[in-house]
């Protein structure tokens, strides 16, 4: 069946071994005029090398300050079906597990109410329904809540949809229950998620271990990363089995064949802290020097496991470049136990938010506020004690703001006495 718009350029994207979104959408187009016009606008963009979407106005559902991104086409004359093309962000279930049942319901819900196109998932983690009109929003929200038991995600200057790695659900290295943490925070802070109250957006992400499979350290204002503070568990027999070539090193990540494994070359010498020793029979780890980089564990997963006194390292301030340049998260709590109901952690979160709301400028991410007002102020406001683990290195400039409380007489000089000692 011929489509409304010829798309010679994007048709090129049907070729090749990787799944083609063009083929997918073309398959939809006969049933959905939005898809048809969307193919048309894409083709136009491919021709002109310019996008054709305008800024969104304020669209949303009643009582929510976020979750919908308004979007309008700048050529409604050519593509009337997508003149309005708003996005709906749905808070994904933690770690993105689904039954086919709920997915089919979602498809059934979306089919009549929008383009039928989605992003599985958005960069923040939401289910993204791509392209609908304002009048569809309220019914869609109604069905979403009633029939799927789901809710909108975040947008605007609010807490954004938190996201975690799959953690304990399928990973042997998880040191914290990422799913429960993410779910608990999401539920506890529904108001912050749905009603913008912050200077700018705020993102939580949680990874179960330092591998950081949800990239928390790069893109969350508050990163919760599992770790342990006791000893790596060693099964010496399995270590010997790796050495003997009986087990596949690196769980097959570097090739699935069993192979001779030189523990010295591939583990001991690579350990960043050089805190390991292998005498051909036994592996010894000086855990007090280990920085929990996961390398030895990930290359010999059947022999080594994280310790059992587990908890999280909390880091804050990651963000993309706008305005002050990109930041990664920085350690502010080297270790915290993370057991429900996470009270100690939530107290920290609330102190952090209070400080940020009081001091942050409009459109200033937490990391930027800390940059501007100093990490010292942040620690003070959140009742945290300075710790060398918070820095890669102490300062190397001598521009120290000494506390006047610690100086005899504070900032005051006795000018007269000074001039008695020293003639001008």
């Amino acid at each position, binding site marked *: 069946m011929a489509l409304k718009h010829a798309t010679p350029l994007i048709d090129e994207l049907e070729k090749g071994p990787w799944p083609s979104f063009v083929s997918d959408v073309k398959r939809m187009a006969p049933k959905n005029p939005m898809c048809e016009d969307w193919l048309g606008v894409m083709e136009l963009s491919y021709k002109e090398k310019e996008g054709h979407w305008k800024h969104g106005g304020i669209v949303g559902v009643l009582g929510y300050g976020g979750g919908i991104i308004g979007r309008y086409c700048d050529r409604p004359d050519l593509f009337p079906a997508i003149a309005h093309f708003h996005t709906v962000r749905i808070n994904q279930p933690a770690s993105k597990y689904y039954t086919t049942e709920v997915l089919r319901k979602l498809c059934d819900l979306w089919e009549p109410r929008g383009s039928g196109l*989605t992003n599985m998932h958005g960069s923040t983690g939401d289910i993204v329904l791509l392209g609908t009109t304002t009048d569809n929003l309220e019914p869609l929200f109604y069905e979403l809540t009633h029939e799927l038991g789901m809710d909108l995600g975040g947008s605007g200057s609010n807490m954004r949809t938190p996201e975690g790695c799959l953690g304990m659900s399928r990973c042997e290295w998880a040191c914290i229950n990422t799913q429960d943490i993410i779910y608990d925070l999401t539920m506890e802070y529904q108001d912050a998620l749905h009603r913008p109250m912050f200077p700018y957006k705020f993102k939580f992400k949680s990874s179960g271990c330092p591998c950081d499979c949800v990239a928390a350290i790069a893109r969350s204002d508050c990163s919760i990363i599992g770790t342990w503070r006791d000893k790596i568990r060693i099964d010496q027999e399995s270590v010997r089995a790796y050495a003997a070539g009986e087990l596949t090193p690196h769980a097959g990540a570097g090739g699935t064949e069993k192979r001779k494994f030189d523990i010295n070359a591939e583990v001991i010498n690579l350990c960043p802290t050089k805190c390991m020793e292998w005498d051909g029979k036994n592996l010894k780890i000086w855990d007090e020097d280990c920085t929990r980089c996961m390398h030895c564990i990930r290359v010999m997963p059947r022999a080594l496991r994280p310790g059992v006194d587990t908890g999280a390292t909390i880091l804050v301030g990651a963000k993309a470049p706008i305005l002050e340049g990109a930041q990664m998260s920085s350690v502010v709590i080297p270790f915290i136990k993370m057991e429900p109901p996470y009270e100690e952690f939530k107290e920290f979160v609330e102190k952090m938010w209070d400080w940020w709301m009081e001091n942050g400028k409009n459109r200033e991410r937490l990391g930027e506020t800390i940059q501007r007002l100093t990490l010292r102020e942040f620690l003070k406001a959140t009742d945290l004690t300075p710790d060398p683990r918070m820095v890669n290195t102490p300062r190397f400039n001598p521009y120290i703001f000494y506390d006047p409380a610690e100086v005899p007489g504070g900032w005051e000089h006795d000018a007269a006495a000074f001039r008695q000692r020293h003639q001008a």
Partner: protein
Amino acid sequence: MAFDPNNLMQDRITDIGPPKYDKFFPPIVKDNFGKWKYHEILEPGVLVHVSETGAELYTVRIGAARLISIDLIREVCDLADKYCGGYLRWTTRNNIEFLVSDKSKLQPLIDDLRSRGNWFPIGGTGNSITNIVHTQGWAHCHTPAIDASGVVKAVMDELFEYFGSHKLPAQVRIALACCLNMCGAVHCSDIAILGVHRKPPFIEHDRVQNVCEIPLVVAACPTAAIKPKKVGELKSIEINNNRCMFCGNCYTMCPALPLADGEGDGIALWVGGKVSNVLSTPMFSKLAVPYIPNEPPRWPATVNTIKKIVEEYAAGGRRYERVGDWINRIGWERFFEKTGLQFQHEHIDDYRLAMMTWRTTTQFKF
């Protein structure tokens, strides 16, 4: 009760949040939650996780476009119903994972997936190039300098051999963001594809005072290039083009300052970033190529440059070395030599922390 457009408050449910996380867990996950003991990759794309209880969970990971239709989702559901008791998940990089509890269904699932053309490629595990994290591009956003999905498709087609194999020194994470907002968080990726503008915005003075809040626009500029200015009777702004580095933040705040331009826009490539704390600590991506023109529909120059970088890394990287570790070992001078890329003034940082990037040692390679 059904939805009543005239009575939005009727029966309204709000703030229920997402379904509880374990609601969609397959039974084997429920039973073995927190008890997993080890895993193994059986072949690229196929994992087994073994529990302390002895239970074994098989996972088959397939690459997917991130922009997918409900038709595609339904097709995936059919497969999950047939082989996985109806359970599946998406990964943090937008791949789909079929969760197989019944080992006898593993090979049939794999065979079925392989039989369906280019829809469901298996791979993305271990030392592969997995799915490219990306953003909207021309598909939906108002600030892009490039498309997203199309560039990703073109790149993945070319790198496809690395998706379904484990032949790289380590995992390679590629990300794309269509503008400097970097929704793809590309700033810590092994290879990052970034849409860039190269012309300062032009100012539609007749619209500014109607559609923009001038103080917010002024504050939005990282380099303080924008000042309020009266143009005739109109309240507007002026831009010091010399200070503009084309970030588009002012345009985000004010639609009367377009900066997109078919000939001006294009792609910058970045390399050597990472997120994990494994061996080395997280690293930012660093500029490799300041500008490649937009070449829709298949972006050949971008694709080939990435391929070249990957191939040099594949040839020169040592086992476990991420791209950034490899470059740190051989040195940037060698990186540019080996890849044939040109080092230009754009590579030398001139923003706020620039000084920290200069070479303050005689240690380098000739």
